[in-house]
């Protein structure tokens, strides 16, 4: 796995798991790989993946069954989508708008460009 600078690795791994849940790799109610298996897959320290799993549990996206590992929660896909939408409006959109203002691009131009893509 390639990591970007200036963003904690545990968050990047959590986001990867979110993408995988959204993509249907871990259906709701199904078990995720163990922390060690996942650590080996992304080639990082086990403790880093423990933090990613903790973070996802706190968000209610996955849950821990004692002695059995982590499972994708009911409604995990929806929570991920919700959380990604939040990120879009909080992080991606302001950057996008800033670029538009810098370049003098109007919302109509953007709409036009989007329509011609479809």
């Amino acid at each position: 796995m390639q990591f970007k600078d200036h963003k904690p690795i545990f968050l990047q791994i959590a986001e990867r798991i979110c993408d995988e849940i959204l993509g249907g790799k871990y259906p709701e109610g199904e078990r995720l790989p163990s922390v060690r298996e996942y650590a080996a897959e992304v080639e990082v320290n086990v403790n880093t993946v423990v933090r990613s799993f903790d973070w996802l549990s706190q968000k209610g996206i996955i849950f821990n069954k004692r002695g059995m590992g982590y499972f994708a929660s009911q409604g995990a896909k929806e929570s991920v989508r919700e959380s990604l939408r939040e990120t879009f409006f909080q992080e991606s959109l302001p950057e996008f708008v800033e670029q538009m203002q810098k370049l003098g691009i109007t919302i109509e131009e953007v709409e036009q460009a989007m329509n011609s893509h479809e």
Partner: protein
Amino acid sequence: MISIQNVKFGYRIHQEVLDGFSLDFGMSGIYGLLGKNGTGKSTLLYLMMGLLRPQNGSVTIDGTSATLRRPEVLQEMFLVPEEYDLPSISLKSYVKAVKPFYPRFSNELLEKCLANFEMTPDINLGQLSMGQKKKVYMSIALASNTRYLLMDEPTNGLDILSKSQFRKAVIEGMTDDKTIIISTHQVHDVEHLLDHVCIIERNKVLLNEPLVEKDAAIDLEELFIKTVKD
């Protein structure tokens, strides 16, 4: 715990590589031992193994002097040197000869590591390339299941894919009670594996800290350059 206290060592008279050097590996975990070339990283590993004797000071493994080379200490230690020769015998015979020295040797882990490195168990050690030799020896090292595993520049001579396989093998072979010490100047090859980082420069420990991510990702190379320069 491996404790290095006030150690003096040189290969020639009046040319000490280490002098008054102290460093502890207290908790289990994966340690990165970083330093510029010629700062004594390999020397330290050999001192821990009892292969070199300090001219002054002490190196102890769980309280026992490394110099004594006690079997009960050595059965919990494994060193993968940077370069080594392996005899021209089958892997099977080699494992048969090595295994009795390590009470927790795991055939299962050996097979897993070899498979991970895309090596088969039916090989002759005399017919391997340098990279393949490293992979086989590292598999044996991990399978020995010793409490302490020391690796000197383990990613040297490995191609990109093999480096990735190496990281997977270390993570799969690691357990909570083990201490793995990886000496390297190839910071990027191992940075995400480490629990703890030690940066040394002649006689001095410049940095000895657990690696805990706070708000941003830690760039170990940046940290290294900054620490060595200051």
